[in-house]
């Protein structure tokens, strides 16, 4: 681990200013991802700005009937929130499908969105990785790709985004609220937060340098039946091979986002119009540009079947 300096942020505005002005600064929230990466020098911030003391741990209703989730709300608390469980159960289920209770107690809403990929080559400093070291190559392309993305990838990187929570937030049309160094705030649709790798897989989000996430805002509840199906090799404590977040209305229409198969939560509002009539067409639309290898081609069939299962779950839950 590289030696670093540390400060506790005293206000959101100050945190954003410091993050933009101190060279090599990074925010730390739960630290469950960042610290692991720092230990093996995949992240090597010169300065840490600890945001844990900021007043960003509240879950509050918004004037238009939605929910504003503070950036520091712990995954455990968010999953247990009565309003979330009642109005956005897909989110609670996605959270509970992730990591372990100990990790969820620590992990924050913003940190979860910004957690980095679990590509094993990214974690091994002796392997080429464009995300870790731009221009060095991608060892995964010739290697083991079972856990990797099949859509939205590029010749530079095929890593998948590992978050479960983000998949549910995507299906809920969440927006991310931020503050920049100049004190300005903005809202970014979750769909636009994560970038596809293209030729620059080390650039993962559309946030500016030092931009602080202050909250995630959910629009008013979408109704319908909510399902989160996460498919994995063991029953707990494993990242998704494929996951499906589904909000299904009584008439069979609804929204679908997929996890485990792309560099970001994967949803296509056009394709999902077919949900009531032909669910496989939704998956086909979502995966139409899939580029698979022999060890991850199964994800196409698995995505179809998991959506079928999710629909069946939704139907029987009614």
């Amino acid at each position, binding site marked *: *681990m*590289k*030696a670093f300096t540390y400060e506790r942020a005293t206000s959101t505005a100050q945190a954003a200013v410091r993050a933009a002005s101190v060279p090599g600064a990074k925010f730390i929230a739960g630290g469950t991802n960042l610290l692991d990466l720092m*230990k*093996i*020098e995949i992240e090597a911030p010169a300065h840490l700005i600890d945001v844990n003391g900021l007043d960003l741990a509240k879950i509050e209703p918004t004037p238009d009937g939605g929910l504003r989730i503070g950036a520091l709300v712990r995954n455990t608390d968010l999953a247990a929130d009565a309003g979330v469980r009642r109005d956005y159960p897909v989110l609670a289920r996605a959270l509970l499908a992730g990591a372990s209770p100990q990790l969820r107690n620590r992990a924050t809403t913003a940190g979860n969105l910004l957690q980095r990929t*679990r590509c*094993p*080559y990214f*974690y*091994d*400093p*002796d*392997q080429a990785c464009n995300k870790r070291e731009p221009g060095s190559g991608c*060892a995964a392309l*010739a*290697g*083991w790709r*079972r*856990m990797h993305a099949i859509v939205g990838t590029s010749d530079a990187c095929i890593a998948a985004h590992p978050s479960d929570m983000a998949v549910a937030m995507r299906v809920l049309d969440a927006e991310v609220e931020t503050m920049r160094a100049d004190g300005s705030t903005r809202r970014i649709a979750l769909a636009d937060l994560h970038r596809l790798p293209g030729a620059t897989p080390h650039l993962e989000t559309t946030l500016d340098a030092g931009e602080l996430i202050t909250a995630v805002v959910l629009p008013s509840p979408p109704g319908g039946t909510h399902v989160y*199906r996460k*498919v*994995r*090799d*063991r*029953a*707990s*404590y*494993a*990242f998704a*091979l494929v996951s499906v977040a589904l909000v299904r209305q009584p008439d*069979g229409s609804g929204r679908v986002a997929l996890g485990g198969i792309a560099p970001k939560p994967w949803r296509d509002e056009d394709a999902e119009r077919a949900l*009531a009539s032909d*669910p496989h067409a939704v998956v086909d639309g979502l995966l139409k540009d899939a580029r698979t290898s022999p*060890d991850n081609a*199964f994800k196409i*069939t*698995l995505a179809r*079947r*998991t959506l*079928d*299962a999710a*629909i*069946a779950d939704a*139907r029987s839950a009614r």
Partner: protein
Amino acid sequence: MKFDTPATKNPIDRLAVVGHPVDRIDGPLKTTGTARYAYEHHDAVARPAYGYVLGAGIAKGSIHSMDLAAAKAAPGVLAIVTADNAGPLGKGDKNTATLLGGPTIEHYHQAIALVVAETFEQARWAARRIRVDYGPVDGTFDLARAKESASKPASGKPDTAVGDFGNAFAAAPVQLDATYTTPDQSHAMMEPHASTALWDGDTLVIWTSNQMVAWGVADVAKTLGIPKEKVHLMSPFIGGGFGGKLFVRADAVLAALGARAAKRPVKVALPRPLMFNNTTHRPATIQRIRIGATREGRITAIAHESWSGDLPGGKPETAVDQTRLLYAGANRMTAMRLAVLDLAEANAMRAPGEAPGMMALEIAIDEMAEKLGIDPVQFRIANDTQVDPEHPERPFSKRRLVDCLAIGAEKFGWKARNPHPAGTRDGRWLVGFGVAAAFRNNLVTRSGARVRLGKDGVVTVETDMTDIGTGSYTIIAQTAAEMMGVPLHRVVVRLGDSDYPVSSGSGGQWGGNSSTAGVYAACTKLREAVATKLGLPPDADFADGRVRAGSRDVAVADAARNGELVAEDHMEYGDLDKRYQQSTFGAHFVEVRVDAATGETRVKRMLAVCAAGRILNPKTARSQVIGAMTMGVGAALSEHLVVDRYAGFFVNHDLAGYEVPVHADIPHLDVVFLDETDPMSSPMKAKGVAELGICGVAAAIANAIHHATGVRVRDYPVTLDKLIDRLPLLAREEES
């Protein structure tokens, strides 16, 4: 003491302490965190420095140059050990690759440097500042591709044959010819390999996490080129080994070299990501099994061939072992072939040989039963043998496989099994039952102990035996208590120190029976000494803290009133294990549920019935068996060291990528021990159980998945991607 005739009645048979489910005597130390592991001897070692191991970043080739300048200049660095400056090093008898590589690199993450610094973080930081210029060369990493080049291993017993397999198989009306694969697996024990070393003059004092103290002393001495007498090695507590700690590894050798270079005590633990490629692993196998049978279900021909790989000079995985002994059949052959692979060193992991061998054989038996239309329990029972089928003049010392199967079937409710695969459904789940035999050979080996009777009447046992979480402390205490007729709390057990008599160590499920037999021998001597001291006949009775003969009745402590009595002996073995085949038996029954949509398999319930001689402590034995069953679930469903065939290493080298079962994967586990004693094995009449428990589990699960889905998967682990294309179509109901 020599054990060369079958055991007769002896003091252990009293079963006042032995055979009882007593709690582990070391339990409170472990649950309170006060048992000191190899990295934690803060009491004995003041101001240790920290060593961090740098592993090679290529799989094969050499180091052109190493630039240590930046690392040396990094804060806190005390010393850097490399092959260049370590002086001449030997190689341990039990090691295949050298433990400190360079300039030649034999495998990925082979240790090439140790950085010693004031703190762990400083050592880690500096290690990454070492610049290495490699000269990589192409290697062979893929067993399937190397299979054709495999050759007959130089040692061991690679081939056996009886009768005329070829003709008998060709003539058999029902035949099976199938190939199975098992993947590379990692021990993935909780405690990493770790050592703390210091030099006391020219004597090396080392605490290391090692299952075999005497092997450890010998190989540390040989590697460092110092006399064995100059190595004091201690391994009192071990956080799991599973065979991964049978041998001295880089942490021990580098801690010793680092302590010498830094002139400070040094502790070294392998970081988790290094453990998978730096240490040993269970190698992958390709196994071809052919079985021929009559229509009535009698096996007439059986053949098992296995291919595995290892570094040059390595050994094969003996995956055909059980097939030489498990089922009858007049015509048979087995063969093992070994390919050279440039992956990390292949070696023993829990039940080497039988664990992967049974994974294949017991699917083959299930397939054969299906072809014959015979219930798989009945098919196994029908082909039981009471003699070694390759050497019919050798009976089994005790063999109750049939009882295990029959009792297990009854207890499990096997009768309820739907005879048709893919025929049972429970909501979204496809339900399947599976069975497999369990089989693991019983090994006995020389083991010594010293026993002291103190003035206070406390009996102290000293032996270099280890407790790898198995319960050695406890069963050794029970044995001494039984032998000396004292209550358990009057016994103190000291283990894992090379100053104590050489024991069997822990491995190959030989430790429980062998080490207690050694304690039996030493206690027999101590009884004689006590009797002599008290002027009692040698056949005096030891019970309730007293020694009785005729009308005399004396407290055992009286014998030591004028000074401690000490006795030392070992148990060695004659040829009973040659005249009688000694094995352990069992049966595994499993119910699985496979998600009809996704192919995810979840185990619903498991039962193991074991016949493994006298169970010295049903509680610790059960712990061993359920632990082994859990490991079997991993082998069946998820554990797989994935070889990057291009770069030549195990890619998923951490516990996020190498998936062992978690609590949510393991249902209630039932274990039944048949009441049995085996007088051929030792005076304890016990055998091993800890490895028996894993043998067959994975196959029982694979068979249950087949029963649930109708899909036969012959390549482990049975992950959903191997099922998904062949699962039944999902009925998508119409909107209601």
